[in-house]
């Protein structure tokens, strides 16, 4: 079996473990919202980014990925939810906080953003071996190792937007099924917000460049 196909399958299996953890420690409502909403977010966002040329961001490398859903790799359906879930869990433990419970919420969100930027570094260095994305532009600002700074900003911004939206919808006083539906529908707002977040950074760094 191709090494990268193994990695894709491992990523899917590990996401299954995280869903199990979430259901065991955070309950069904949170788990449905987080992972179903995250899957929709990944599915729609990554297909939009890959197919809308006007965004001028990137597309996915067909030579690297094996499992696809539309113009985006299948693992992108779980990518955002598993990375943000790791970010949230690690941040809650380290900060001694609780996003939903309201304990040290700001610190949990800020630390989650830092975690996402750290994870972006890990992913980008790995992408040096397996070219996962085909960039459509030359980044104006890079950090050590040639990692585009925009990626770190983008990962951090996704955590911020996703967690704030989750918190907002989770706190609505209505049945779980409606909250899940509303959160899934809210990805339509999250995606343009995140793209705007990236545009702001690109404009700012192009001025620096």
């Amino acid at each position, binding site marked *: 079996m191709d090494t990268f196909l193994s990695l894709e399958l491992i990523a899917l299996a590990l996401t299954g*473990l995280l869903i199990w953890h979430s259901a065991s*420690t*955070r309950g069904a409502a949170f788990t449905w919202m987080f992972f179903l909403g995250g899957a929709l977010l990944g599915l729609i966002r990554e297909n939009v980014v890959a197919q809308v040329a006007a965004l001028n961001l990137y597309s996915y490398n067909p030579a690297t990925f094996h499992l696809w859903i539309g113009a985006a790799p299948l693992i992108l359906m779980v990518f955002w939810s598993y990375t943000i879930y790791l970010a949230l869990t690690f941040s809650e433990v380290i900060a001694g906080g609780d996003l939903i419970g309201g304990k040290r919420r700001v610190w949990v969100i800020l630390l989650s953003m830092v975690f996402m930027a750290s994870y972006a*570094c890990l992913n980008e*260095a790995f992408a040096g071996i397996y070219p996962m994305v085909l960039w459509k532009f030359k980044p104006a600002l890079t950090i050590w190792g040639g990692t585009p700074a925009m990626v770190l900003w983008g990962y951090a911004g996704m955590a911020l937007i996703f967690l704030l939206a989750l918190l907002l919808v989770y706190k609505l006083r209505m049945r779980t099924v409606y909250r899940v539906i509303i959160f899934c529908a809210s990805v339509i707002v999250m995606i343009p917000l995140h793209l705007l977040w990236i545009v702001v950074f690109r404009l700012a760094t192009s001025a620096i460049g």
Partner: protein
Amino acid sequence: MNNRDNKPNFFVREIPFIVLLVFWVIYAGIEIIRDRLDLLTSTIPTVFFIIAYIVVKLLSKDQAGQK
């Protein structure tokens, strides 16, 4: 429904840590095999979180033991 009161076993509780560690080992392992290990970028930022997580867990265990 909130399951926070029903404490799951050690394996289930530590799944996120295991998952991050597995990803980290795979990524770093492949980078080492391919002779492309970039310590600063790929490994150090996430290692801070791994170490911080372990330290907090150990400290909270110590505090629980002292009570």
